[in-house]
């Protein structure tokens, strides 16, 4: 049977990808951000997941306003990255796991979700940057992926409560999957930032820390926020917290293993959280 090893939340800012491409991880600006990642990398090296299920939001690479799915699940054998128009180098393709993808599709539809399924799906920096952060020594990550896109471009967006419930449905589908697979669930984005309008540059470190604190043991406290409230508290793009809540929904009773926060990263509250669900994690933490 498949099992979920744990969950990771991480920022995915394009500037991180540029810094990696230029080898700037040790510069004064970037070192405080990248310095947070080695414990997450070690946790992955130790637990060695086979598959990463990645909740992310597309920024106008795969989806345009002509067709904008609220939830879209990748069901491809391979996912390609492509030119996003703002100077990021194109990342190598990443292998998929179509069998698990379809099991997740079956599972979430059985729980009354209505996802779009994608046998071709370009993954943007919201997938590729986290993979580079978490497996920095690999040109392509040593995992297969199932990308799940959540619309954060065009309102109305799905609610925090709904995204959390989607994560629960995805988690149940993974755990019901009959093949022996170790799975890590990743949510990418955020935390607080706003790129647009006279309010551009808004950042809320106190709210980011509240999110990091509550998402482990009391995620319901966060799912009670409306999206308007989240935009007010976290900024128009800080709404990417929805990805973290979907990821957390796939976990049961995780243990906080590692947390890192550094702001600003570009215009953003940069955050990393590792939650472990492997047997014994709770005992170790106790």
């Amino acid at each position: 049977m498949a099992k979920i090893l744990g969950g990771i939340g991480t920022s995915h800012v394009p500037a991180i990808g540029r810094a990696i491409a230029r080898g700037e991880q040790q510069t004064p600006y970037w070192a405080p951000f990248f310095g947070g990642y080695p414990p997450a990398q070690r946790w992955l090296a130790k637990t060695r997941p086979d598959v990463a299920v990645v909740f992310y939001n597309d920024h106008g690479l795969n989806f345009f306003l002509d067709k904008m799915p609220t939830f879209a699940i990748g069901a491809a054998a391979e996912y390609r990255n492509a030119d996003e128009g703002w100077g990021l180098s194109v990342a190598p393709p990443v292998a998929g796991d179509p069998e698990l993808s379809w099991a997740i599709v079956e599972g979430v539809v059985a729980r009354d979700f209505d996802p779009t399924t994608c046998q071709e799906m370009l993954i943007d920096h919201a997938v590729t940057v986290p993979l580079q952060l978490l497996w920095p020594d690999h040109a392509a990550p040593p995992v297969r992926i199932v990308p799940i896109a959540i619309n954060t471009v065009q309102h109305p967006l799905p609610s925090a409560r709904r995204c959390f419930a989607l994560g629960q449905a995805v988690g149940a589908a993974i755990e019901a999957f009959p093949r022996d697979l170790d799975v890590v669930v990743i949510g990418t984005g955020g935390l607080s930032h706003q790129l647009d309008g006279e309010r551009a540059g808004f950042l809320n470190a106190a709210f980011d820390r509240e999110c990091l604190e509550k998402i482990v043991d009391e995620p319901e406290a966060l799912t009670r926020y409306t999206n308007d409230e989240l935009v007010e508290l976290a900024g128009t793009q800080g709404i990417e917290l929805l990805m973290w809540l979907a990821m957390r929904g796939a976990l049961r009773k995780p243990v906080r293993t590692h947390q890192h926060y550094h702001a600003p990263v570009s215009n953003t509250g940069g955050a990393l959280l590792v939650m472990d669900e492997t047997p014994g994690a709770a005992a170790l933490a106790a």
Partner: protein
Amino acid sequence: MSRTIPGTTLFDGEQAAKGYALNKLCFSLNDAANRAAFAADEPAYCERFGLNPAQKAAVAARDVLALIAAGGNIYYLAKMAGVWGLNVQDVGAQQTGMSVEAFKAKLQEQAA
């Protein structure tokens, strides 16, 4: 109905309908050849995508607030800003009427 958040335009159906042509132009800029064509003759490229006068004027002025008012979405507009050599701090500074240095300082202050 959304609550009003100062300095914030939620990109909803109304904005998406209004800004469709503008955002479609920006989406085309994922392609390097299209970026070159846009850079070579911005008015002609805007004409090709059927931008309305307000959108054309906002592009000509490189005015991000006006682009948003004309229905632009920041994720797509960022691709256009990239052609102009503007990063997200430049765009933030322009929208807030600050120098880029002052905008960066504001980001730092809030992070504390």
